[in-house]
């Protein structure tokens, strides 16, 4: 009887152990990670990340958290990273560099030390650049200031790897686009208007100004900076327009581009001055925040803003990744404001982690043997397209940013979703409880993906200074 009971117990245990394996779903064929030589079942890989999720960057970073969370859930249900379960551990800096330092001190002294960190913002990258190199902790970031990635001389790649193009290169690419389309943009004069600080000022450099001049684009030498809390920026905008600007370029996000667009409308300049900016200006948040700042055509004032779009976008539904992420977002009832660039980046970040660990563990033999230096070695040689959303190629360790970019414009969907609206009358409007109407932003590519110019100090495309 005892023997029978024991056998029954063993059978039940075996069934319980087999159940998760048989219930585990598999990844679709188009997601191709490096095959794992080592089974990491029972292990946990933690994605440590910290940054501003409660101040100026919140509109971008909150969806990033949601994206990382949903992606972790999805991949964990499909085997995680070589069998290891993924987890996340994050902290809020509130945009305060002192908090950034404090959180870095916490994470960098964990035992064991993180193999990899994720940061969100340029100021954080600039602050921690030397420290992560000293502590040998590689960092992935969705930001692109030259100093953070390549040091003050622009030629010293550090331990921070960006998943988007350098801001200065994005600006240069915009100038190149203007030069190539002089019929649409005759005699372009750019006025640079931004937030003060590492992020806001990142694109305005001697190299970008000289490169733009080579493309036949004048960049005014007096940039205007305004605080995210500014009540009115009429004087800043007028300064640039009076100096001859017919294009305003902004390195801001969320309410930043909206403030500039609103002022152009108020000044009656919306038809005379084009608005353009960094990749974050095409984010969903900008389109949604602009609902209280409408142009004379009845559409949000940011309609027609040109910016970089180095990632695949929600409207590119022919992309399997977009189909997958959209279906999960629908399933999880992800709010419209969270269906933005950062949510997609969250998914791409988790996918990149899986690939990085697969490659690294294969090389070093076990998860215990993985450390920051090993991950850095993998990153240096990584050529990978996370979920097909963008392509990472750090050029054998020479590069620290994504050099493929394209330009796009933000417009708004028309009422029957068959195209873009030409005015407020034929736009798709979603009634909101506060009596206003939200407009559905649509990103329309203007160019294909192409190499950005290299405008670091001493960069290949930086004119001799």
């Amino acid at each position: 009887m005892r023997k029978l009971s024991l056998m029954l117990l063993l059978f039940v245990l075996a069934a319980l152990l087999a159940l998760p394996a048989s219930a585990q779903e598999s990844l679709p064929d188009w997601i191709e990670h490096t095959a794992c030589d080592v089974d990491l079942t029972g292990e946990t890989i933690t994605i440590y990340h910290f940054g501003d999720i409660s101040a100026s960057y919140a509109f971008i970073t909150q969806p990033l958290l949601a994206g990382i969370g949903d992606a972790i859930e999805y991949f964990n249900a499909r085997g995680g990273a070589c069998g290891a379960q993924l987890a996340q551990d994050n902290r809020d800096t509130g945009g305060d560099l002192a908090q950034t330092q404090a959180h870095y001190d916490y994470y960098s002294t964990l035992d064991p030390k993180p193999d990899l960190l994720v940061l969100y913002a340029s100021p954080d990258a600039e602050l921690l650049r030397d420290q992560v190199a000293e502590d040998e902790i590689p960092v992935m970031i969705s930001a692109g200031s030259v100093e953070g990635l390549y040091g003050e001389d622009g030629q010293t790649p550090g331990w921070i790897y960006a998943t988007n193009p350098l801001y200065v290169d994005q600006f240069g690419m915009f100038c190149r686009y203007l030069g190539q389309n002089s019929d649409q943009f005759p005699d372009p004069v750019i006025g640079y208007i931004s937030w003060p600080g590492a992020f806001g000022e990142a694109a305005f450099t001697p190299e970008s100004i000289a490169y733009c001049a080579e493309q036949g684009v004048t960049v005014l030498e007096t940039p205007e900076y305004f605080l995210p809390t500014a009540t009115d920026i009429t004087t800043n905008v007028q300064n640039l327009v009076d100096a001859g600007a017919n294009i305003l370029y902004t390195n801001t996000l969320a309410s930043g581009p909206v403030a500039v667009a609103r002022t152009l409308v108020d000044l009656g300049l919306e038809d005379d001055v084009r608005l353009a900016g960094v990749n974050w200006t095409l984010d969903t948040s900008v389109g949604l925040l602009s609902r209280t700042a409408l142009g004379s055509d009845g559409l949000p004032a940011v309609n027609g803003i040109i910016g970089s779009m180095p990632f695949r976008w929600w409207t590119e539904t022919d992309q399997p990744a977009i189909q997958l992420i959209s279906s999960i977002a629908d399933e999880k009832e992800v709010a419209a404001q969270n269906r933005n660039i950062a949510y997609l980046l969250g998914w791409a970040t988790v996918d990149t982690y899986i690939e990085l660990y697969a490659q690294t563990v294969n090389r070093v033999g076990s998860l215990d043997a993985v450390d920051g230096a090993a991950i850095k070695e993998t990153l240096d040689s990584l050529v990978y397209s996370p979920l097909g959303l963008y392509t990472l190629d750090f050029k054998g360790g020479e590069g620290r940013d994504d050099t493929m970019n394209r330009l796009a414009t933000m417009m708004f969907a028309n009422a029957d979703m068959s195209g873009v609206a030409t005015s407020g009358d034929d736009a798709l409007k979603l009634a909101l409880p506060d009596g206003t109407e939200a407009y559905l932003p649509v990103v329309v590519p203007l160019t294909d993906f192409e190499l950005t110019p290299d405008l670091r100090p001493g960069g290949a495309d930086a004119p001799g200074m």
Partner: protein
Amino acid sequence: MTALLKDNRRYLTITLYVVAVVVLLALFAPVVGAQRPARLVQSGITGLLVGGIYALIALGIVIINKASGVFNFAHGWMMLLGGFLFYSFFTVVQISPVASAALALLTVLMALTVIGWSSLRDLRVLGAGALAAIIITMLLLVEIPLLRGIVGAVCGSVLIGLAAERFAIRPLIGQPLFAMVLMTLALSEVLHGIEQMIWGSVEIPLSLFAGIKDLGLPVPIRFEMFDSSVIVRTELLIAFALSLLAFVAFVAFFQFTSVGLAMRATAENQKLAQSVGLRVRVILGVAWAIAALLATVAGVLQGGATSLSLNMPLLALRAFPAVLLGGLESVPGALIGGLIIGLVQEYANLLFPGTQAGTELAPYLVLMVVLVIRPDGLFGQKRIERI
């Protein structure tokens, strides 16, 4: 020589000021002269309108300082809280009668017990309180979003102001002022946490002024001057008008009401005021409620002009120079200080483009110069400490 200087010290000081002003004018004249007159007008208008918001924020800080001598570092977070409260009541489709009644009752209860719980023993007070609670509840249930927003924000902010005074400031009466100042710093962190927990961190556009066009008002107001177009942002003009109204009301309050006078006395010396029969607790409670209300007005107006975000409290930092410039205890000083800071900021932006002089330097430079000349601010009380 020394005696000569001593005898004519006053004249010498005035002469130095005059020379400084002449030098400044000589320095700025070419820069100003190079500007188009319309731009000077435009920046003046923008500066005044932005200054109106600064002034409103400064007024809230001054009210508390006037009553208690405390510099309230939580004012920025009170602003944002007021803005969020307004947003919530303004946008909610249907409000629960129970929640409305609870908010109304709590606010009335806090107001009635400012003196102490014993006041609830008075049946007349209880009756008046009940009537007030019923009226507030009914107003909150009216299906007019703007009215609901105003009543909800007023109730909520008064409640927060009274609660802050009752549970955070009152226990510190008689303690060194520094303890109260530190308490306001703690309060700011608590409010930060509460706001982040309830409303999240993502910016919220507040469509307060969306209906201006429907009222037939031009948005923005545009007129020709010196052969150029000059604009006035309608929403900022409304905000400015409301700021002025608030100032008129508070100047009258301090000039003509006994509570206003008592507040001034309490600010001088809390222990002394208490010893002559002034109800310091009531005065502090009223001051905090008024300041919270003012913060709410500023938060709602700023939120309507831009959006509601966790950055907004930083705007209060911009009002600090206005407070110090005008004088810590001066209501008119808050107005003048706010307007001066707004104007200085905009003119610095205009005259020194590309330098960040307007946002980072000029307001503080002006503040430093004024404080060197008048350490108590333009309208502050000169204090003589006897040793």
